[in-house]
């Protein structure tokens, strides 16, 4: 294959200072970005609300209150009821659990897998590299969304299958980034020094090389959470997302489309939460990249 700039360690390391992680002032640089700071506050609030959902609402998310469908917001139902006469606020809270769980667990899965493939490929080279990168290429060549659709339509969509499917189909970018970081780092002076001093390969990888790749992983993973949440909503639209009666923001938004004229607010809330949440993860990812990048001033 082509020896390309994206993989070529020599093209980039001259552009960067040897040590980026752990420099002082990182958090300050991050927090200076008002959007990212707001995003962190928002996400903490949402996560807390999701975790403590049972304390915040007295309605079970599935409870149908006969005859009370599509009610406007009221004291009893803070954001009204949905088309099936269930408390919308409760569903938003419980939906947050599902959507965030999908986003976070799928991301963890994809980052773990991607890092493993990338690190092994970059560090050990040779056959390991060939296999790892061919696997990555293969996954990148599959129209992943079609595959997700076909598989979930066949296997059936449940929260675990969706998490697995998203996680195992979105690790390729991480693998590539980690691999190139590893390639870059492996030639840095201090790593060379450690090698000369007799560090084992595994120790080199875990102690010296991977920490260097950490910033890239961090960026990839924050962005990954948002992507996973978006993918779930798209799958919901096609009918293979989280299946009702379980609420997710994705299926709530998708269902609300039917009532966009009769009850526009129904589409507003889940849409807004998806947008804000994904936006927050993107802001944070971007701000971390900026904060970690040496040339930002």
């Amino acid at each position, binding site marked *: 294959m082509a020896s390309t700039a994206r993989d070529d360690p020599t093209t980039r390391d001259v552009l960067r200072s040897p040590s980026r992680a752990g420099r002082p002032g990182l958090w300050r640089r991050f927090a200076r970005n008002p959007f990212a700071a707001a995003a962190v506050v928002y996400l903490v609030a949402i996560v807390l609300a999701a975790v403590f959902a049972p304390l915040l609402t007295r309605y079970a998310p599935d409870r149908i209150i006969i005859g009370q469908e599509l009610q406007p917001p009221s004291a009893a139902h803070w954001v009204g009821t949905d088309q099936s006469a269930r408390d919308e606020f409760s569903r938003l809270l419980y939906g947050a659990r599902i959507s965030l769980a999908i986003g976070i667990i799928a991301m963890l899965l994809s980052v773990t897998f991607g890092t493993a493939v990338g690190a092994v490929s970059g560090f050990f080279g040779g056959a390991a590299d060939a296999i790892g990168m061919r696997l990555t290429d293969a996954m990148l060549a599959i129209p992943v969304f079609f595959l997700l*659709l076909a598989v979930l339509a066949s296997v059936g969509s449940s929260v675990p299958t969706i998490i697995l499917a998203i996680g195992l189909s979105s690790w390729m970018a991480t693998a590539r980034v980690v691999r190139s970081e590893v390639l870059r780092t492996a030639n840095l002076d201090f790593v060379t020094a450690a090698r000369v001093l007799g560090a084992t390969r595994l120790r080199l990888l875990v102690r010296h090389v991977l920490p260097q790749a950490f910033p890239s992983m961090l960026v990839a993973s924050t962005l990954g959470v948002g992507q996973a949440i978006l993918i779930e909503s798209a799958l919901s639209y096609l009918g293979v997302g989280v299946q009702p009666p379980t609420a997710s923001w994705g299926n709530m938004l998708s269902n609300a489309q039917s009532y966009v004229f009769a009850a526009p607010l129904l589409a507003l809330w889940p849409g807004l939460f998806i947008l804000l949440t994904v936006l927050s993860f993107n802001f944070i990812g971007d701000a971390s990249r900026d904060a970690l990048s040496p040339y930002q001033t």
Partner: protein
Amino acid sequence: MGRYILSRTVQSVVLLVFVSMLTFALIHAAPGGPGVLLAPGMTGAQIKEAQRALGLDDPIPVQYLRWLSNLLHGNLGKSYGQGLPVSQVVISRIPLTLELVVTGMLLSVVFGVLIGVVSAVRRYSIVDHLATGLTFFGMSVPVFWLGLMLIILFSIDWHLLPSSGAVTLGAAATLIDRLKHLVLPAVVLATANLAQIARYTRSSMIEVLNADFLRVARAKGLRERAVIYRHGLRNALVPVVTVVALGVPRLVGGVAITESVFAWPGMGQLAVDSALQRDYPVIMGITLMVSILVILTNFLTDLSYVFLDPRVKLTGTR
């Protein structure tokens, strides 16, 4: 060069076998079986007989090898639901999908690079903040929701653009009519990709603008505009090309949603239909054709590095 192409071709074939094996195994392992065989009006015994007649009770590896051997004879099989050859069913949908994807790609590359460069050059200006806001919105909004909002605004409320289909039914075909139908789906399809490209272009451009060789160029007294466009942009575009290439599968995946929202009769809808109906031969046919498309794009992308970055040389192996 010849050797390189040969080696890439061999790799691509291996890749295709892998992809098809994976897809085949996953869909055939699922419980239930093809929807058309479960048609209403059929008894359990009839369903079993139909599954047997299609060889669906054979072990999956046997079924896969049968599929592969048919493929080698140029036979992709027949759609369970439509009774027509898969090649005919799929190929008839390609032109419309290509129309959409190519337009979407053009929109996202042209505007993505433009926005990215302007943001980078005028970093922290109003334009940059505006562009940043827009690109973040583009990356964070659920595609189908965006599509429906645009339909409500442009089709239902303002009556400016049609909400569905590729042409007006029953009307004479005109270029204007086609373009009008193309606008909303292409914009929706391009949005996320455009945002991605703009972000990457911006950061890549910023990095390059700070690079030593541009400092050298500046030091030599070149005008800033020349520095940016003659030296900066070309270097900044190298990673952008990667993002564009990586965007192809995403764009192709995106057509499933976009085509569903806008009733665009292309391959995306066919994919959704065949997945939900479990029309196995069609799913396999689409997977294969789209994979070929993506592999070709990757190949062209790698070739393009040669022209964009003189340091890159093609070799037989990476």
